[in-house]
């Protein structure tokens, strides 16, 4: 049964909201977008995007195991992600890495962990008969499977996350931008980092339930990266990030409702489009600024050479 999109948008939204699963999905999507947008902004600042992705990927075997064992997927998602975050946080600093592609060794380790996690998830799914269709939902997201309980759990997880984020705000920012100086000034950098990893795990687990474990990037990273392209101010940045994530979530869900194509595609496409637009705008703005100040070729070249 395919609902029909008409020109009367208000009527379309009302029709959509008549379905309880959509209401749940939109509530979940809103919560997830807020948490993912805020935490994602800090994560991109700390250059830990791939830690976030890995944590989300680890959620997949957790959820699959939960289904196999007959419990709610939430246990699996949150359990696996939080456990992994604790493991990463407990590793000595010399063994812990957050980036990708630098030293071949560490990205090989991250790649292996991801592959093994996905393989385990496949094992659990295979052991649980007749769940192969659910495989797509776990990996790429779905709008139709969000229960009221899941929404409640999301709320319960989101609130402390946001509270902790607000409380940690300034020391976290300081420790992210300048860990050595922050440490010297008495900020417990390692503790702050570990707490952030836990929050990241919660955000990743929550986001996985909307976008699927593989496409967490779409809500956790891309809106934040878009915000970073546009401004360097923290408050504005977090606001923009949350805003973009909300737009992507709502638009993605609505379009997914009316089309046969899954939400994972729509959310990634919307956020990617936003990212491209922001990048293009930034490049254009740089060039206009450069033209106004002809003598600053070196400065703008240096600015372009810096990592975005």
């Amino acid at each position, binding site marked *: 049964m395919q609902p029909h999109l008409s020109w009367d948008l208000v009527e379309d939204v009302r029709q959509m909201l008549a379905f309880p699963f959509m209401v749940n999905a939109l509530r979940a999507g809103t919560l997830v977008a807020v948490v993912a947008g805020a935490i994602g902004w800090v994560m991109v600042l700390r250059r830990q995007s791939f830690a976030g992705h890995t944590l989300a990927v680890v959620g997949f075997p957790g959820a699959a195991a939960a289904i196999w064992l007959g419990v709610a997927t939430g246990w699996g998602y949150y359990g696996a992600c939080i456990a992994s975050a604790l493991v990463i946080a407990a590793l000595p600093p010399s063994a812990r890495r957050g980036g990708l592609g630098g*030293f*071949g*060794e560490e990205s090989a380790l991250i790649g292996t962990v991801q592959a093994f996690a996905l393989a385990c998830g496949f094992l659990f799914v295979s052991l649980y008969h007749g769940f192969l269709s659910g495989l797509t939902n776990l990996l790429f997201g779905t709008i139709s499977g969000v229960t009221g309980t899941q929404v409640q759990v999301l709320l319960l997880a989101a609130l402390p996350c946001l509270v902790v984020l607000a409380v940690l705000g300034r020391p976290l920012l300081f420790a992210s931008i300048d860990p050595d100086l922050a440490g010297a000034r008495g900020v417990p950098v390692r503790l702050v980092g570990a707490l952030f990893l836990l929050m990241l795990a919660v955000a990743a687990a929550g986001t996985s339930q909307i976008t699927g474990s593989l496409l967490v990037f779409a809500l956790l990273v891309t809106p934040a990266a878009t915000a970073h392209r546009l401004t360097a101010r923290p408050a504005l940045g977090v606001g923009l990030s949350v805003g973009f994530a909300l737009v992507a979530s709502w638009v993605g869900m609505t379009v997914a409702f009316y089309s046969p194509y899954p939400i994972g595609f729509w959310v990634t496409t919307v956020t990617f489009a936003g990212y491209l637009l922001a990048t293009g705008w930034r490049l254009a703005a740089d060039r206009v600024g450069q033209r106004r100040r002809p003598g600053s070729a*070196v400065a703008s070249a240096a600015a372009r050479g810096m990592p975005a």
Partner: protein
Amino acid sequence: MSGNPGQLRVDAVGPVSDSAAALPAPAVELTDVAARLGGHRVFSYVTLTVRPGEFVALLGPNGAGKSTLLKVILGLVGHTTGTVTVLGAPAGRRNRAIGYLPQRHAFDADTRIRGIDIVRLGLDGHRWGTPVPLLSRLLRPAHHRQAGQRLAEVIDLVGAGAYARRPIGQCSGGEQQRLLIAQALIRRPELLILDEPLDSLDVPSQAGISALIQDICRTQRVAVLMVAHDVNPILPYLDQVIYLARGGAVMGRPAEVITSDTLTTLYGTPVDVLRDRAGRLVVVGQPDAPAHHPGPSR
């Protein structure tokens, strides 16, 4: 001398060698060479000669084009005017007989490849194919033995025997440079080109490497052309220096070239050469190249 490019040719100063009759063919000969990189003229009207068995340093301020000049000699960068003859052929043809030590950062500490394997690459790293560890010993024992002998020889030559089998990332800067010099020497080159090899080394290592290079230069009759930004560590070992500036180059014995008069003439601005208590030379007033020189050539 400034502002008139046509007159900035400053040729070799003073007697270049003792007896002109018994001169061996030069390893490197540049005549009136200019080069452009990225649209800018890097240097022009450079004339220099390096003979076998000579230890020659190429000096000059940052951005003067020293690394570019080495690349011209290697045929990696084209030259717009003049002639370049390297080992009797145009630049780039006889690179297999040249040992090249480019300006590199140190190997990452995580690099777990042994130094001896990196030296070995200098021997045949360019040949297609892939070695199978045991097979070469079985199928071509003579070749394998010869390669092994040469490898041991050259590592012994640079004194790296104690740490050649260590992962190269765990060797110190001086140790890495010795291994890399061994790599450059393994094919018995006639010309050795080094780009700032002493850059990140401490003083004792600098002295050691400089002495090693001079030793190789004398005993193996290799022509050595070395780029340096500080002449002091190598001054005692040098036969000739070349000072490079945007307008041209000056070549000759150190005592003749590194003087206030010569350098002032070369750069067209007042440059002083002073000697401190320890006998070290200090060059004051040497202008750096303008800001838009091509980026660090690595």
